[in-house]
């Protein structure tokens, strides 16, 4: 080693409550800055993985099929809120759950952040927040695709207040779902996450049909209520394409809030269990 001087070790200091909270906030922000920087490094991959599926769906169902005279002409109107909802909810799994599964399972990279001077739940909350942020970005990335690609421009109106509240809540649902899944599965179970969670949630998430239209299959109409994506799709439908009908607002908000609270609880508890023996 060279003869450079290192400062002597720190001393334990006394902190007032305000000062202490300020320090925690700084650490929280620093963790966010790290995640955003990593996201920036991988921006291209982010856009690809986020946009590919909705792009293909809207291209085939909203452009190709209407052009060749197959399928409903205005299907893109139904798809638009549904695909934005899907992009939001699955961003949590992509951005939070999959990396966490790897970090807990193999790389143990999370260690340094767990040792940052923040309570463990604070580190977990940062994961949710960063997942939510990526979900917002996912919604913004997906919107031009689902709006511009269809053969017939979707007929949308903006109910801004509901739209913004639903978007924000849905993004946090996504982050907390990601945390809950990321702390519950081992790397070997990743394929299971897709077959058991991602695929059923999408197909039964009122993405391709408004919930109300399920009245002809009453048992299904009730069964899908367990799926958080249903409330997100219906909420977005209510604020973007209300002409196709949507679930009652109270039910939408209740469903989203229940999902948010339960996933956050499961996620925080799961995280604590995984990092503190």
């Amino acid at each position: 080693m060279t003869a450079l001087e290192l400062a002597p070790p720190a001393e334990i200091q006394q902190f007032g409550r305000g000062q202490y909270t300020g320090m925690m906030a700084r650490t929280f922000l620093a963790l966010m800055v790290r995640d955003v920087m990593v996201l920036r490094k991988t921006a291209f991959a982010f856009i690809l993985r986020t946009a590919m599926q909705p792009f293909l769906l809207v291209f085939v169902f909203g452009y190709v099929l209407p052009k060749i005279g197959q399928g409903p002409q205005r299907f893109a109107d139904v798809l638009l809120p549904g695909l934005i909802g899907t992009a939001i909810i699955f961003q949590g799994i992509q951005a939070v759950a999959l990396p966490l599964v790897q970090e807990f399972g193999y790389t143990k990279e999370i260690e340094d952040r767990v040792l940052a001077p923040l309570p463990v739940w604070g580190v977990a909350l940062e994961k949710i927040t960063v997942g939510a942020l990526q979900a917002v970005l996912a919604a913004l990335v997906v919107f031009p695709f689902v709006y511009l690609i269809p053969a017939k421009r979707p007929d949308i109106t903006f109910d801004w207040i509901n739209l913004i509240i639903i978007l924000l809540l849905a993004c946090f649902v996504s982050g907390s779902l990601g945390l809950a899944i990321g702390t519950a599965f081992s790397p070997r179970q990743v394929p299971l996450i897709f077959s058991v969670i991602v695929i059923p949630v999408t197909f039964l998430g009122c993405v391709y049909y408004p919930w109300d239209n399920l009245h002809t299959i009453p048992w299904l109409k009730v069964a899908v209520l367990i799926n958080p994506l249903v409330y997100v799709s219906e909420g977005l439908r209510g604020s973007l394409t209300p002409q196709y009908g949507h679930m009652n607002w109270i039910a939408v908000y209740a469903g989203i809030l229940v999902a948010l609270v339960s996933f956050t609880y499961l996620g925080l508890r799961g995280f604590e269990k995984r990092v503190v023996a």
Partner: protein
Amino acid sequence: MLALQMHNAKPLSMPVTAGGAIPDAAGGAIIRTAGLTKQYGDGRGVLAVDHLDLEVRRGEIFGLLGPNGAGKTTTIGMLTTRVKPSGGAAYLGSIDIARHPAMAKRYIGVVTQQNTLDRSLSVSENLYYHGLYFGMSAHAAHQRTAELLDLFLLKDRAQSEVDQLSGGMAQRLMIARALVHDPLVLFLDEPTSGIDPQTRLALWDIIRELNQRGHTILLTTHYMEEAEQLCDRIAIMDHGKILANDTAENLKRSIDAETIIELRVEGDVAPTIAAVRASAGVRSVEQTDGMLRIFTGEDSGIVANIVAAATSAGAQIRDLSVKPPTLENVFIQLTGRELRE
């Protein structure tokens, strides 16, 4: 109103002293544990650490020496907030570690056995972001990063991906990262495990130099020579308990011998043991599978006496060595088995 609130705001009930620094800061204990216990599972699980009373003094290198599974890593886990004790208490200065983990984390640097470098970040970013986590300004973190890259000879690799580092470099970077925020205590869990001998020597130099700069270091190891070379005090640990805790010199002194003669013989060892035990200068004899360990005083002439005694008892001597007592001997005496498995 604001001033009143500030006045009434209760300071947190953790590190509370008037002047800022804790009273026992100079030369006193920086880590204390009392009855610290960890039982995994619900009551019936493994007792990994069993009522540990430990004191690490400021400025020393303290070593936990023991075989794998002795409870060293669990002990470090409890001291670094990663393992919740099932009983007892551990303090860092005046901070109760289990009750105020976020506060304790601020003052410790941890190097785990596994490589936990952030693979999404470059070498220098690993240091820089660590600094930000600990509340440093961007400027201070940059400066500190440059300093540490220099100090740990990683400047040329500053922009590398951490995946491209050799084992020794990765270990240096892990130690550098643990130092970014100037921790009061640096924890090194098996710092040279699985590392080639040359790199091990280099790491020993780093550890010594950090200690000279005033860092208190707590390390675990299952290498005797590492404990002996580096540590001011050593706690020998087995089955979750500390069996002895002293300087290497004193630990070795606890063995009643100046010289240990190891004798490997063939055939029935019982008559040989009897004959050797009766020789002048022999204090005691231990036996582990075909190997006799003969504890003696001064060695002048004694080897010849022992060889003569063993030969006259009909022993076929296959190997003989004369050594001063080692920590290995201390360990065998304490546990009845060898440290190396």
